[in-house]
């Protein structure tokens, strides 16, 4: 770990000011991703601004929905009685990720800002455009089975690793940020970005901006939902493909469909055309297969035995199964790993 200055902030304004006061500043809350990256020398901050003493850990009612303070831990959100009863999609997604120890430390804001788990991003001996812009992408033509199949560029095929953010995308959460130029709201769909020519930028946050809260809208999809996560082992592993599905039904017809995929893109992946296609259709396998086919038609895979072509069929089946689970009101269990 490199040597760094340390600032303990008492207010958001103090944190924003301290961040601007040095080169290479980083905010630190739970630290579960940042400290790990610092141990690998991937992150070498000049200054750490400790924001854990800011009063941002509350979960509050707001406009018929909930406001999650940026410092509310992943565990605090997942086990909050209101989140469990009204936003079980979010609770289940959070509990599908990491371990109990990590969820006890990791913050809501930090979960949004966690970096990719691409092996080459972590390995400072290999080129990586996200870590070192312009150095090249080792994953393209390399071992790419965990990598993206949607929204990739010639410079980066990394995925965003979060489970929580996939649920937030389906719920259309809004991220509240504060920065040197004041406060603003960013819809979750615009918070993370695709790699394009600048894969070093994971999000559309401006330098020095800090996440202060995440707002959950009143529409909670609390009756017909699922978070289905497929991975190499049954717990404590990142998603190869995950599906957050929320449905509103009118009898056996789909009134509204929300669908976000994890493990397949540089951001939680939504396809509005597929969601629109489901609207007014019977909530059955045929409709769900049509939506899944439309989504995976856009997939672009990495070839070879170490590639990720398998993710296309995996995603197609996961989408159908996830929508079936949501329609039937039988969400995927976190502890019973059998897929119904």
């Amino acid at each position, binding site marked *: 770990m490199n040597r*760094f*200055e340390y*600032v303990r902030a008492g207010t958001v304004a103090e944190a924003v000011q301290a961040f601007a006061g040095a080169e290479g500043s980083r905010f*630190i809350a739970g630290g579960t991703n940042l400290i790990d990256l*610092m141990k690998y020398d991937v992150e070498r901050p000049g200054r750490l601004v*400790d924001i854990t003493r800011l009063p941002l850990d509350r979960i509050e009612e707001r406009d018929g929905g909930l406001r999650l303070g940026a410092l509310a831990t992943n565990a605090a959100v997942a086990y909050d009685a209101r989140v469990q009863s009204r936003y079980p999609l979010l609770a289940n997604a959070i509990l599908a990720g990491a*371990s109990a120890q990590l969820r006890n430390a990791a913050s809501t804001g930090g979960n949004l800002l966690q970096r990719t788990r691409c092996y080459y991003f972590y390995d400072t001996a290999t080129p990586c455009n996200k870590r070192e812009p312009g150095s090249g992408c080792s994953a393209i033509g390399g071992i790419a089975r965990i990598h993206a199949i949607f929204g990739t560029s010639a410079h980066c095929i990394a995925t965003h690793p979060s489970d929580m953010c996939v649920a937030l995308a389906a719920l259309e959460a809004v991220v509240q940020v504060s920065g040197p130029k004041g406060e603003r709201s960013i819809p979750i769909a615009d918070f993370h970005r695709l790699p394009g020519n600048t894969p070093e930028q994971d999000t559309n946050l401006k330098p020095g901006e800090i996440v202060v809260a995440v707002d959950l809208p009143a529409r909670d999809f609390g009756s017909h939902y699922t978070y289905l996560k497929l991975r190499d082992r049954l717990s404590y592993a990142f998603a190869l493909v995950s599906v957050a599905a929320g449905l509103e039904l009118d009898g056996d017809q789909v009134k509204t469909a929300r669908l976000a995929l994890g493990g397949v893109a540089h951001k939680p992946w939504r396809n509005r055309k597929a969601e629109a296609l489901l609207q007014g259709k019977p909530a059955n396998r045929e409709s769900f297969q049509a939506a899944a086919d439309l989504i995976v038609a856009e997939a672009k895979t990495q070839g070879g035995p170490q590639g990720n072509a398998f993710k296309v069929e995996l995603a197609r089946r996961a989408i159908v199964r996830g929508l079936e689970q949501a329609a039937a009101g039988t969400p995927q269990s976190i502890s019973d790993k059998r897929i119904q």
Partner: protein
Amino acid sequence: MLIESGSPVAADTRIGISLTINGHRRDLQVAPWTTLLDLLREHLDLTGTKKGCDHGQCGACTVLVNGTRVNSCLTLAVMKDGAEITTVEGLAGLAGTGSNSLHPIQEAFIEHDAFQCGYCTPGQLCSSVGLINEGHARSRDEIREAMSGNICRCGAYTNIVDAIEDVMSQGGGR
């Protein structure tokens, strides 16, 4: 030096913090990059807490911070100024039955043969106590899921779950 809100502390400065470790208050001077794990092992000779992967993947370094289980390898000591830390050395004290007796979870690990080489055991024990404190896991499946952050390469998992179930059925822990 003592820390003042909003004032940067230069990289080569030791920062004064105070922690209550296993019931004893300790006033310490730490560099900002010292992890809680390294503070315990290298500075305080509390070597019960183990360094496995040092990256939050194995759980060998699990301790309780204010009663909550966390990976001490991914925790900067300076950020926990004022906290109460419990390590495996302090579990017996938590049980409140005198310093010579073990915590119920320690008794249960022995009773159920819940370890082989023992390297992961301090983390498994602290994690188990954290799990019982949290109160979310009830079934065996839920215990297994909630313990997935603790790796045991000897494969004592079945007996670890037995031990935890045993203590939970007695309403034990704390």
